[in-house]
C-alpha cells in the first residue's frame, strides 16, 4: 500500500499488461473510490489487497471494518487511480472474488458520499498558534488535545478538504498526520 502523503503515488498501469502490448494507449488517469462489501472471513482483506498487488493496481487508501454482524459482512473502501480501462478491470476483478458480495464505484455514483477523518498535530506558539486555531475553527476542526505549545486537531470531511487543511497547517508547525482513509456510503433513497 502506498503512503497517502507521498508527493506522487506510483502511476497505475495505463495499458493492459500483455506481453505483446507495445504501449501507445494514452487514456487519462483518474481517482476512484470502490466500496466493496465482502463476507467477513479470515483472509478476506488479504484477498482484496493481494489482488491489487498481483495485478499492479495502486491503493491510495484503504479502510475496512465489519459493518453487519448478523450477515457477517465487512465493508472495504479503497481509493485507487487508473485509466477508465484499468478502473473497469479493477471493478470486474473485485467482483470475481468468491468472497465479494457487492462492488460499487462510489466516485461515478451520483449517490455516493465520501468522507474521511484526520488527526493533525501541530507544534507552535505566538501568532502561528492563534492562526492555526483560527483556521481550525473555519474548517470546523475540533481540538482533541492541547498543550501550551501545540494542538491536535480532529477534522472530518471530504478528502480534498482535509488535504487543504493539512496544507494550511504546514507552515504553522505541522508535525504529524494520521488519516483514516476514505469511508463511503450511498445516500438514502429519497421520499
Amino acid at each position, binding site marked *: 500500500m502506498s503512503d497517502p502523503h507521498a508527493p506522487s503515488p506510483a502511476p497505475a498501469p495505463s495499458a*493492459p499488461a*500483455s*506481453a*505483446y*502490448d*507495445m504501449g*501507445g494507449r494514452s487514456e487519462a488517469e483518474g481517482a476512484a473510490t470502490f466500496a466493496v462489501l465482502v*463476507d467477513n*472471513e*479470515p*483472509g478476506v482483506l*488479504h*484477498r482484496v489487497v*493481494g489482488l491489487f498487488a*498481483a495485478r499492479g493496481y495502486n491503493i491510495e487508501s484503504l479502510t475496512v471494518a465489519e459493518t453487519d454482524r448478523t450477515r457477517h459482512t465487512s465493508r472495504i473502501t479503497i481509493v485507487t487511480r487508473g485509466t477508465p*480501462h484499468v478502473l*473497469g*478491470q479493477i471493478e*470486474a*476483478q473485485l*467482483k*470475481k472474488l*468468491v*468472497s465479494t*458480495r457487492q462492488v460499487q464505484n462510489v466516485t461515478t455514483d451520483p449517490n455516493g458520499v465520501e468522507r474521511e477523518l484526520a488527526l493533525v498535530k501541530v507544534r507552535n506558539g505566538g501568532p502561528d498558534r492563534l492562526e492555526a486555531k483560527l483556521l481550525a475553527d473555519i474548517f470546523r476542526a475540533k481540538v482533541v488535545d492541547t498543550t501550551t505549545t501545540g494542538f491536535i486537531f480532529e477534522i472530518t470531511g471530504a478528502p480534498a478538504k482535509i488535504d487543504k487543511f493539512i496544507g494550511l497547517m504546514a507552515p504553522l508547525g505541522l508535525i504529524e498526520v494520521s488519516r483514516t482513509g476514505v469511508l463511503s456510503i450511498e445516500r438514502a433513497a429519497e421520499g
Partner: protein
Amino acid sequence: MNAPSPTLTAPHQAAVSSGKEQLSGAQIVVRALVDQGVTHLFGYPGGAVLPIYDALFHEPRLQHILVRHEQGAAHAAEGYARSTGRPGVVLVTSGPGATNTVTGIVDALMDSIPMVVITGQVPTHLIGSDAFQECDTVGITRSCTKHNVLVKSVDDLAAALHEAFRIAVEGRPGPVVVDIPKDVQFALGPYTPPGETRPIHAYAPQRIPDRAAVIEAAQLIAGARRPLLYTGGGVINSGPAASLALRALARQIGAPVTSTLMGLGAFPADDPAWLGMVGMHGAYEANHAMHDCDVMIAVGARFDDRVTGRLDGFSPGSKKIHIDIDPSSIGKLVKADVAMVGDARACLEALSAEIARLPKTARPDPAARLAPWWDDIARWRERRGFAYRPSTSLIKPQWAIERLYALTRDRDVFITTEVGQHQMWAAQFYRFQEPNRWMTSGGLGTMGYGLPAAIGVQAAHPNALVIDIAGDASVLMTMQEMSTALQHDLPIKVFILNNEWMGMVRQWQQLLHGERYSHSYSASLPDFVKLAEAYGALGLRAERPDELDAAIQSMIDAPGPAILDCRVEATENCLPMIPSGKAHNEMILADDVEPLSQAIDEAGRSLV
C-alpha cells in the same frame, strides 16, 4: 505433539448423539467426497492427513491413486478433470505436501480447470508455531486458487467441502483448496449432505446472457461478410453440448472456425470449416482469417498474448463479440464491441435461436454472401503453412506426430502433452475431432504436466488409449510417476520426441540470442528404453523413419505402460511462427528465405 485429545478415537467408528449423525472430521471428508460423486483421488499420505487416510481405508467407493510426488497428484487431477468435465480431487499432507501441489494449482487456475485440493494441516493449537511440516497453506495458495479455506471447526467441515465443489465447477472453473487441521479430522461433528447445506458465499455467476447482447450479436453476425468463430477452453469447460452448439452455429452462419490451444477438439479437425489453431504457432490460414475478419465471435477464449500477437495490429478491422462466463475477461486486453456474459453453451444456443428468428431478408444465404471470404481462405490454405521438408534418413518430429495420428485415429484416444516444441507440433499435426480429448498446459506452460495428466486421464478412462506426447526435457520433470502408472495398472503411453535439446529454448536462442545455445542442451540423458524397463514398463526406440510405424504399433499394442524414445531431427524448428512483436499477417514460414535469426526486430526481442 501434545498428548492425544479426548476425541482421538478410532475415526471409522461413528457415534450418534443428539439425533444428528456424528462423524469424525476424517469420515466427514470421505462421506462428502462420495456424496459429491467423486470416484478417484490423487494423493500422497503424511502425518497431518493420516486420519483421512485411515477413513479411506474403509471406503471402497473411492479409488486412491498413489503418486510419487504431490505435483503429480495435482496434474493427474487436472487430467482427470479435463477429460471428464468433473472436478479432480487431490489429497495431500501439510507443509511440503501442500507446497508441492502449488504448480498444479496455478496450472489449473490459468487453464480454468475444476479441482478440489484437500490438504492436511497441523493441529489448530499449533498453527503459527512453526510446527513440524507446518506451512501457511491458505496464505501460500490464496493468490493461486479460485478460493481457499482453512476449516477450524469440525462443525463447518461438511459445508466447507460442499462449497468447495460448488465453487470449483460453477462459473469459470478453478482450483479450491480446503485446509484441514489434524485435530479437526479427529473431532466428532455433524455431517450434512450436499443440497442440505446453504451456500456459504453469495457467489452466483451469470449463466444466461442478457437478451440485448444476444440481439446485438445476432444482427452483427447476420450482416457479416467475413465472420470468424474463435473458440477457447470455455467451450470445452461448458460441456460436450457446447461443442454441439458451436458446430450447429458454424453450419448455420457458414463461418470458418479457429480455436486456441485450449479449445482444440470442440470443433472437428476434419470439418471443412476448420482452419486449425490460431496464434503464435497456429495455422497460416487461421491467423490471416483472424487478421482480416469483419466480425469475430470469441467464445470462451481470453485473447491470450500467444493468440493475439501484437495487440495494436490484432484483427484491426473487425467487430468483436466476446462470449465469456467471466466478465473480467471481457475487455481485459481487447475491446469487445458486444459483451455477452454467460455459459458458452447457453450463449451459443441463444445466438443460434436469435439468428434463426431474424427475417429472411436480414440474413441472406451465407453460401453466396461469404463466397469471397472462402476464396481468401482457400488462397491462404494453398500456402501450406505447416509444410516441412521430409527426410528419409532422420525422423522429422512433425512426421512422427502425423504417423502417430494415422496409427491411432481409429482408437478411443486421449492425448496429453508436456510443454515446448513437441506440444506445438502435437497441436498442429494431431487432429482432434471431439472435446475433452486433448489435455495440455496452456496458460502456465508447465513442463512435466503431461505424464501425470495421462495418469489422471487413464484412471478416468481405463479402456482408452492415453498417450503423453512428450519432449525429452519435459518428461524428466515428472518421470517418477511411471511408478504410479505401474502400481495402478494404468497403461499410459509416453511418446517422447527426443531431440536432446530443450527444443523451444534452443529455437528462441537461435532466433533471438545469436545462436548462443546457453544451457539448453541436455547432455547425459538417460537411456529411455532402460529407464522404462527399470520401472517395469515396455521400452521402445525408433531412430530411423523406417522403424517408426512398427515402434508406434508396438507402443499402442502394449497391454501396460510403455515409453517410446523417438529420436527426431535435433535442430528442427517449430514453424510457422508469429515472431515476437509482430501481427498475425506477418508470420514466418518454414520456407521463408530470410534467416531466422533476423526475423525478430529489437523491440520484439524483449518480449516473452
